[in-house]
């Protein structure tokens, strides 16, 4: 959600007006401090992120169920949440209903082939999504080079990491999984190896020089 608190408003007013560049210069420490705790979502667009109900859906419930089951084996749950918990299926559904809509026909065709192949291997009584995990993994091992599986894989990973407003990465679970903190700005040290950096040591024969601060 978009925290439209005074800090954020102050920051957005400052960056939203080129004529205020001088004001920014004068007030930068305060602005920076104000923006630091700002939720990352504040910079995710000038428009409020769409709520769950604004997301589009094009897959049928049955299709959703199978695709979600595949996604859940691509990035399984467990100690840390996986694709299912992060809502990757909502991203996939939204994407195929809108900005990746061109992929929908081949995606559906691929899903049909996937289901047929699964039925041929394990019978038509129960779908892939109802199978035990070990059986799902065994079957996916036989189809993981197909364009359909590659498409589900690509969309699943995008759904983990793209902004929550696209449907996936629910509660930032995808970012949490890969170790990304949700923030708009940072200051050094950034990581383990730069925290004790002693400074740049000039090479023999060189004379690094800087501009006069005046």
């Amino acid at each position: 959600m978009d925290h439209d608190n005074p800090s954020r408003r102050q920051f957005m007013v400052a960056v939203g007006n080129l004529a205020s560049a001088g004001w920014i210069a004068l007030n930068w420490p305060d602005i920076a401090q104000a923006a630091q705790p700002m939720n990352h979502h504040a910079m995710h667009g000038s428009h409020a992120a769409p709520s769950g109900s604004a997301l589009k859906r094009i897959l049928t419930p049955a299709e959703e169920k199978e695709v979600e089951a595949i996604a859940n084996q691509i990035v399984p749950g467990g100690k840390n949440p996986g694709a299912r918990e992060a809502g990757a299926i909502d991203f996939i559904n939204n994407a195929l209903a809108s900005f990746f809509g061109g992929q929908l026909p081949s995606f559906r065709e691929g899903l049909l082939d996937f289901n047929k192949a699964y039925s041929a291997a394990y019978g038509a009584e129960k779908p892939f999504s109802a199978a035990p995990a070990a059986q799902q993994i065994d079957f996916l091992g036989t189809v993981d080079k197909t364009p359909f599986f590659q498409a589900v894989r690509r969309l699943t990973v995008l759904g983990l990491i793209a902004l929550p407003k696209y449907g996936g990465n629910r509660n930032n679970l995808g970012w949490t999984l890969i170790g990304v903190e949700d923030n708009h700005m940072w200051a050094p040290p950034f990581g383990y190896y730069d925290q004790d950096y002693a400074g740049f040591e000039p090479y023999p024969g060189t004379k690094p020089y800087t501009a006069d601060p005046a």
Partner: protein
Amino acid sequence: MVSKMYKTSETVDFVVVGSGAAGGIMARELSRAGHSVVLMEQGPRLGPDQFEHDELKYRNLSGITNNPATNPQSFRHTPDETAKPMDGRNPLTYARVVGGSSTHFNANFWRLHEIDFIEGSRWGPIEGASLVDWPITYAELEPYYTKVEWEVGVSGLAGASPFDPWRSKPYPMPPLPVKSSGVLFERGARKLGLHPFPAPMAINSVFYKNRPPCAQCGLCGGFGCEVMAKSSSVWTMIPEAEATGRCEVRSLSYVFRIGMDKTGRATGVHYFDGKKVEQFQKARAVVVCANGSETPKLLLNSATNGFEHGLANSSGAVGRYLMFNKGGGAMARFEHPLNEYKGANVTRVMHDFYDSDPKRGFYGGGGFDARSGGPLTWGQSVPKGTAAWGQGFKEYLESYTYWMQCAGHGTSLAQENNRVDIDPELKDAWGIPAMRVTYKDHPDDVKHAKWQVERAVEIMDAAGASQIVPGEVGEANGGVHLLGTCRMGNDPRTSVVDKYNRTHDVKNLFLCDGSSMVTSGRGQPTQTIEALAFRAAEYISKFAKANEI
């Protein structure tokens, strides 16, 4: 700021086509010199609050770049193939927004070295390539490199690299703070006796020219900078051009043909406005700064009586000699988190291997840097031996913050068959014939890229990496550094523009962008494009005032 408005029927001194790295400078310099200027831009004008931290939008959905659905291109490797549109993407990518590609660049600002301008003489002919000298030298361009650093804003540490070309002034700002990737890159390279140094970046490290320092958000390449710390034309040159009261920035204006009269002079530009209505802006002279793909496309689409093969194309060189900057590198994993998603993308570079060396057995040179990107591309591919799905893949995803890239950036040789021309059938959303791209790497470019991969592996190994993934060097099928397609030269039979960026064939038509470059440099062309723009603008203004246009 309220921009000056000109009527299309009013004959302005200059129309500048393209508002990017070169176009912004051209507009500022010409308007400051007293000329009336209309600056045309295909894309919209966005304010700082309209630039988002949305990787999907900018990396996958053509948020501010040319969109393959509306601006399609076709591609082939050799002239005997039939060019076809690529699956869901264009081979040549550039920004369509006020500020052009300076809006979304990574902001690596390397000067060319003295050797870059004279490699034709140094190396002699190379089979299959057209490696020639520039008509200007480093010494002639040096004052303008300095002007870029001080007027546009570049941070760095002068004299830190033993391989730096000479310079007349230091950078106006100190370098950006180092990241973990920079520390590790420096550690590994120094162990090997190499000389990494703080990266020169067109990003404010301190308050400079009324713009704040970098917020270290980590999203530079591909993104507009909403805090205005990145020295993009939209934050630097364009407001200063408008402040003269003589420059109008006309966004959502797609120039598709240059108007010509019977005497062979340019009369202005035909363009579609934001409602796709055709307009014509009269001008005394036209300066095209539309990038190395759109500039030749515009000239070729402007063919008319007396210029049947495209404007300014008596040499046949318009669109030819396309270069990208080939390179090779490696990914490396370390024991502790680097958190490369934080901070400006590059903080250390190294130029020990900048010059080509005959001992290697091929032409090619380049630089290396330690760099990072945003998280969205993570996991779309995996190293050999790593599971592509399942529990093993999940563990790989979880290792994101432990990785960095050691990237090599290098030369691409100019070749006559590598070109941008007009596809015989494909049209864009405005009905304008689309560009066709033909490109195949020169064998030396591939050898050099593979050689760079080996060096990157050595550096990361010396840095103590626990896992190294050498980059794969494949055939180029597109690029973002769009260079050489209207090359500069003294001979009208072999080049398109003279050393002042005036076309040999049309007296009042000038071109200045990556297309002017004669050789590719070593991977970071924007500062050179901007230096050329400052230099060309100075001469163009002199010519105009002397009534020599």
